[in-house]
């Protein structure tokens, strides 16, 4: 009933992307077994903090999500769907009222935090308040996803109401954000930064220990409100930034899985050596590297130069080759490939950077560079010190640009200095990224909006026309019209202004020890990580 309603409402962007995943899911006949400790690898040195409201990285969500509850989430048994949302802390998915501007959630009774105190609607509302309208001095990485929300309030101990400024299909998918953890109001009121360094939730696992740069441990929460879950006695997440270490750990069965994604070479190596002891799940990934020119630096303030950068790239031939060595796969525009709102190949081929004839495209690039007085331009491409796929994509791009006479060097920075340089605009052109959780194109394309609207846009441009196009799109609830408007927005961003350049979308490959059951891949490495459904067939 609810699904039908949501689909009828358009539900954002989020229409069915069903066959995108190729999951070797456990057979339905598999009966979950209780017990055991899941050991998994986390491809990072350490999470920047434990606060999901503030952070955007898998290093935080993989390590900490099992300790927390959320209001709603993508169905853990069907995580590749973009419409199948289910309650976690609520009792029933709500039917919007007031012309789609009011959503009322009933909160489960009897839920307790790990310290034994009851979880009420006040805790839920306070947590969402911090996410949507953070108090002064606090930051919320997802504030911009909720520009449609007017206020959130707890009308009684078991009811939370979200009141919107305008009806939009993008709201409900945004609400299923996997970082939107429910914190205890009492602690938030005393010290809103407490959750940066401490963990206390109501999720399937209780915090059992953290060794900086080494591991994080959780033990089963016997009072978990989803009865019978979790199946595991506990988990250990081991931090290891080096891919070789993580692959070796899985090969030697010191760890069972890594949830972010490994490149094809690692998959092939593990499958070859371990045979049926390894199960591989793959999915298109709601994540991609972008190229962002700094519009405040000459000559990248000139659209001809930005357009030439795009025209030099041959994604159609590059993507299949890169897919053999890196975690990238699909050529697409600004919308997650496979979404009904994504551009078709024919539509894409009209945009700069996607022309079918690469020779013609590069000739045009050379002409534009000459016209702009930027022939043989030398510049520095800034990049993040992450192999997969950042450095692979950059190496490919630099060679592509060399084919129109551009001379590009690369400056690779560790994650901290990389973000610092992005925020301060100390770069010519940078490898950027747009990784989202729930596939929600209307929100996901926010990345392309100017910094004044979307805090994590680093192009240093203002564009009123672009904002107006987006606002109209956001307020449109008819999916057919949305599709047409999103094409207009896409053409403006990628072809007319070339604010940013696309590179092939990522491909998520998760090889896991075959005894790991109950975990299903999704199009995001942020989703479905509370581990409540995971069990070990040992």
């Amino acid at each position, binding site marked *: 009933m609810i699904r039908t309603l949501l689909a009828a409402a358009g539900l954002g962007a989020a229409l069915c992307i069903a066959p995108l995943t190729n999951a070797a899911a456990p057979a339905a006949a598999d009966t979950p077994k209780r017990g055991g400790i899941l050991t998994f690898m986390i491809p990072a040195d350490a999470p920047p903090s434990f606060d999901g409201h503030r952070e955007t990285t898998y290093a935080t969500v993989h390590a900490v999500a099992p300790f927390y509850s959320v209001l709603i989430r993508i169905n853990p048994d069907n995580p590749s769907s973009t419409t199948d949302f289910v309650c976690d802390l609520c009792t029933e998915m709500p039917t919007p009222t007031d012309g789609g501007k009011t959503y009322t959630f009933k909160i489960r009774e009897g839920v307790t935090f790990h310290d034994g105190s009851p979880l009420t609607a006040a805790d839920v509302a306070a947590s969402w308040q911090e996410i949507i309208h953070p108090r002064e001095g606090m930051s919320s990485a997802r504030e911009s996803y909720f520009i449609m929300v007017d206020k959130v309030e707890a009308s009684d101990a078991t009811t939370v109401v979200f009141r919107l400024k305008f009806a939009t299909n993008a709201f409900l998918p945004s609400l299923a954000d996997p970082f939107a953890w429910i914190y205890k109001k009492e602690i938030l009121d005393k010290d809103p930064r407490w959750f940066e360094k401490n963990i206390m939730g109501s999720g399937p696992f209780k915090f059992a220990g953290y060794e900086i740069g080494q591991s994080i441990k959780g033990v089963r929460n016997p009072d978990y409100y989803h009865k019978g879950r979790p199946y595991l006695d506990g988990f250990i997440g081991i931090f290891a930034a080096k891919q070789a270490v993580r692959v070796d750990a899985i090969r030697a069965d010191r760890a069972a899985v890594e949830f972010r994604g490994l490149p094809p*070479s*690692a998959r092939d*190596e593990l499958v070859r050596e371990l045979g049926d002891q390894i199960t591989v799940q793959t999915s298109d990934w709601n994540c991609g590297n972008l190229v962002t020119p700094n519009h405040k630096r000459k000559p990248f303030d000139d659209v001809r130069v930005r357009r030439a950068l795009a025209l030099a790239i041959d994604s159609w031939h590059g993507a299949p080759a890169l897919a053999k*060595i890196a975690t990238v796969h699909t050529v697409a525009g600004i919308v997650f490939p496979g979404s009904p709102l994504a551009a078709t190949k024919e539509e894409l081929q009209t945009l700069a950077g996607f022309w079918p004839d690469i020779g013609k495209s590069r000739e045009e690039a050379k002409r534009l560079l000459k016209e702009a007085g930027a022939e043989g331009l030398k510049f520095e491409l800034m990049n993040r010190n992450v192999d997969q796929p950042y450095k692979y994509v950059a*190496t490919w791009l*630099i*060679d592509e640009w060399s084919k129109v006479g551009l001379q590009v*060097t690369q*400056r690779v*920075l560790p994650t901290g200095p990389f973000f610092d340089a992005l925020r301060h605009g100390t770069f010519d052109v940078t490898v950027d990224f747009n990784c989202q959780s729930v596939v929600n194109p209307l929100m996901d394309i926010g990345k392309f909006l100017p910094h004044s609207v979307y805090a994590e846009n680093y192009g240093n441009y203002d564009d009123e026309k672009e904002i107006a196009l987006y606002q109209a799109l956001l307020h449109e609830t008819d999916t057919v019209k949305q599709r047409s408007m999103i094409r207009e927005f896409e053409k403006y961003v990628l072809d007319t202004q070339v604010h940013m350049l696309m590179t092939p979308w990522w491909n998520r490959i998760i090889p896991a020890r075959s005894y790991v059951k109950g975990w299903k891949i999704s199009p995001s490495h942020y989703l479905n990580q509370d581990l409540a459904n995971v069990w070990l067939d040992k």
Partner: protein
Amino acid sequence: MVDLTPPCASAVDTAAESPRPSREGIIGFCRRQPLGTVGLVLVLVMAVAGLSAEWIAPYNPTSNDFAAMTEPPSWAHLMGTDQFGRDLFSRIVFGARTALIVGFSCAIIGGGAGLVLGVASAYFGGRLDLVLQRVMDVVMAFPLIIMALAVIAIFGSGVYNVIVAITIPLIPRCARVVRSSALAIREVPYIDAARACGFGHTRIILRHMVPNVLAPFLIMLTAFVGQAILAEASLSYLGLGVQEPTAAWGLMLQGGAEEYASTAPWIAIFPGLAIALTVFGFSLFGDALRDALDPKLRDR
């Protein structure tokens, strides 16, 4: 015109001349130092490769060829190709240039600065010596690679920053050795004679002291080239040195070499061999040079 040169000048200058190395020439060196000759050959091969990379390398070292990804060694690609289809032989040849630039720049700048500081410290002594040596102690307390990592963390990666990062820790190592030699020379009679003749500090240092510490200095210089190449490779391996798509041996050992160690081992083997042979070559050549320049060892 009045000649202001003190009458004792030429005699002192003559006395100050260091014992010159044997003039036996290259053939004699080869005969007396076979291992050193092997080292010299390795160094020369690397130098020739680096200097004439454009003519030797059959392919553009940064050009991807997706039709030839991870191909094993063949006549078309003598050392095979990497995961981007780039010819490994061409990248190793161009990588020699990166190694040469980094190795010699670090050795010459670091060694030169160490020479100046070491001799000045020994010659002037007193507080200057005390302060300089304590500074050297502090810098030397950190292993070379740790110090280089710290410098890279401050200045960022890239060829020039790598040179700075490796040069800084080399300075005290050179200065310390040079100072110990210079201290002995400072006490010899011709230095006193030069002072008595009224020579300036610059003349005494450059004319009478520096030539006499050149032998250990040159030996150190060869060792420094090897150390610098190894340090550059280590930094690049850690992702902190030279960046893609620049051809550099340490960088070639990173990423693809790890990922394809079992399926395409040539990606790791050849750059590893290049680093090992070059460092080995500089070590052998440095040892031989020491033997050739040390009068005690020369006639053994």
